[in-house]
């Protein structure tokens, strides 16, 4: 049996523990899809696989138990999925009957967003689609996740890039009845950015995370939604060396800025990646170049919207497994 493993891995097929048997990874950008695609996935799993699918942490599907000699045949079958879930978003695919064109950059995950969730500040799946169109296909191993609000339910803090929806709350003091629902709630569930002065609410803009809770809690529409923007947290990761949470890189950034920075990050990786390794995560590249180099290159050619703020320095937390001296 002769199989080019490098080739099939880039084609979104796995080398599994069982010889000759592979597993197909399906991308679902934004984690939301029309159920019509499930029919095809079911057919592949029943006819070629072992009748099961695995729901991945990245909101895709893996279809296990497929013989490697069926790869070409199944790639042909996948055309409607690649067309509907990738090409229709604007992802450039030259041959939709040849399976996935890359697997390095992982599926862009998203929380359920404002199609359902009252807390979400925007349509996360829609932005995930725009990001997918911008960065896929790509071989660099990058993980991006998008959340509707700073609750970060999709856990962008464990991703190379986590995008979170922010909204500028606009206060009309004429409509405020002084019930303090927003003040109490902000203190309880958010950052305590609101205070009550002279029977009206004062917002500390440096403390406000743009979560939108005050708008949701206000019974009188004294708080309403202003401009919607984003927080970008970067270089969170799990992994066997140095797990850590991402740190804020941008806040109050608009969509154009977010998309440009993501695009620039790929150029940064391309410039600095250690090509002697089979693969290198962007976070480890930043560890090597230092944050100032990343910041400069990520913002190259980007015109920040006036409200946007950029982290002056970065102190990623996290720990190194080999230095856990408390394991006695």
């Amino acid at each position, binding site marked *: 049996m002769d199989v080019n493993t490098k080739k099939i891995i880039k084609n979104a097929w796995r080398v599994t523990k069982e010889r000759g048997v592979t597993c197909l990874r399906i991308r679902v950008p934004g984690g939301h899809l029309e159920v019509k695609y499930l029919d095809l996935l079911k057919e592949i799993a029943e006819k070629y696989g072992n009748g099961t699918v695995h729901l991945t942490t990245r909101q895709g599907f893996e279809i296990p138990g497929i013989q490697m000699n069926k790869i070409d045949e199944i790639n042909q079958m996948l055309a409607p999925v690649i067309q509907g879930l990738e090409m229709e978003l604007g992802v450039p695919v030259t041959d939709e009957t040849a399976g996935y064109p890359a697997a390095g950059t992982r599926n862009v995950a998203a929380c359920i967003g*404002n199609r359902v969730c009252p807390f979400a*500040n925007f*349509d996360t799946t829609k932005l995930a689609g725009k990001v997918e169109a911008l960065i896929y296909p790509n071989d660099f191993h990058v993980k991006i996740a998008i959340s509707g609000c700073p609750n970060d339910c999709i856990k962008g803090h464990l991703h190379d890039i986590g995008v979170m929806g922010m909204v500028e709350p606009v206060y009309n003091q004429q409509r405020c009845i*002084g*019930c303090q629902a927003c003040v109490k709630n902000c203190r309880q569930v958010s950052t305590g950015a609101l205070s009550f002065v*002279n*029977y009206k609410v004062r917002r500390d803009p440096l403390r406000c995370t743009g979560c939108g809770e005050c708008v949701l809690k206000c*019974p009188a529409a004294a708080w309403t939604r202003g401009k919607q923007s984003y927080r970008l947290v970067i270089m969170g990761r799990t992994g066997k060396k140095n797990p850590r949470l991402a740190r804020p890189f941008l806040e109050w950034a608009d969509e154009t800025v977010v998309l440009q920075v993501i695009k620039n990050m790929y150029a940064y990786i391309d410039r600095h990646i250690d090509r002697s390794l089979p693969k290198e995560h962007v976070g480890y590249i930043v560890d090597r170049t230092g944050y100032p180099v990343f910041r400069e290159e990520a913002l190259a050619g980007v015109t920040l919207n006036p409200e946007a703020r950029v982290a002056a320095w970065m102190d990623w937390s996290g720990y190194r497994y080999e230095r856990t001296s408390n394991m006695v």
Partner: protein
Amino acid sequence: MGFALTTEQFDAFLAGLARDYDIYAPKRLAGKGAFSGTDLIAYAPVQSLAEIVFDRKTFYSPKEILLPISQTLFYFTEEAYREPQQQQRPVIIFLRPCDVHAVKRLDQIYLHNGDQADPYYRERREKVKFFVMECTEGFDSCFCVSMGTNRTGEYAVFLRLEADRVLCDARPEFTPALAAYGREAPFTPAFIEQNKISVKTPEKIAPAVYGHPLWSEYDSRCIACGRCNVCCPTCTCFTMQDIFYEDNPRCGERRRVWAGCMIDGFTDLAGGHSFRNKYGERMRFKALHKVYDFKKRFGDHMCVGCGRCDDVCPEYISFSRIINRLAEVSDDE
């Protein structure tokens, strides 16, 4: 007298009125809903027919036009005080029959409750003209028919929106203006005769209702957010706020600001006392005010059955169900 106006003619009529009146109507405020990507239907100044929302109920009632949410009553310095200049222009409000009745409830409290009419309210109220929007279908939560607020004759102009024209019935004050823009046409206003929901209000309340277990359900279901108070077209309570300006605390102003009986702090007294700490007790207080004691005092129920409190409750508490349950337990007791 009846008139028919095309959409264009009606817009010209409105433009003419705008010279003398501020015109308020239900309007779609894009992106101003609490949830992202949603609009708020609320009262706002309008200039054309297309801006007026006929097919949705407003989230907030027109009460805020007559009774500002936050209103400065006077400014004070060390030795003197003065009222703000009232420069209120005459106002036209587009509203449904139930909301006209609701304004009558406001009148009852602010104009006819004791010897002294409230001058701030009267100042605005005297300048208001009602343009009643015909309402024959209502909405899912409405129960105006049960409350007897489905009909009204109190209007300056009554309108029916049709596909490409507006039919109006006008009082003499507005007939010259309508005649100038439209043509005479027979028109008889219609009213809604049946809602999807009907309620039975209690005739007599036995003392046992006070401690009835029906209220305790709301101890946990209600979150005391006060949306039902704020959205109610007949809630009239306010509180006073004395503000001392931060830059110079020797000057300041006294404001009156809406208050709500469901909200924490409503019953706070000197010494730290407060009443109705349980939310079910607040619900009882509100319910009995809306459909019992107001009527005992003034002859009509306070509640006009607009159903806004049902629409806005984040905990899906239905006030019409509360009324019916109240009537049931009152009959039992």
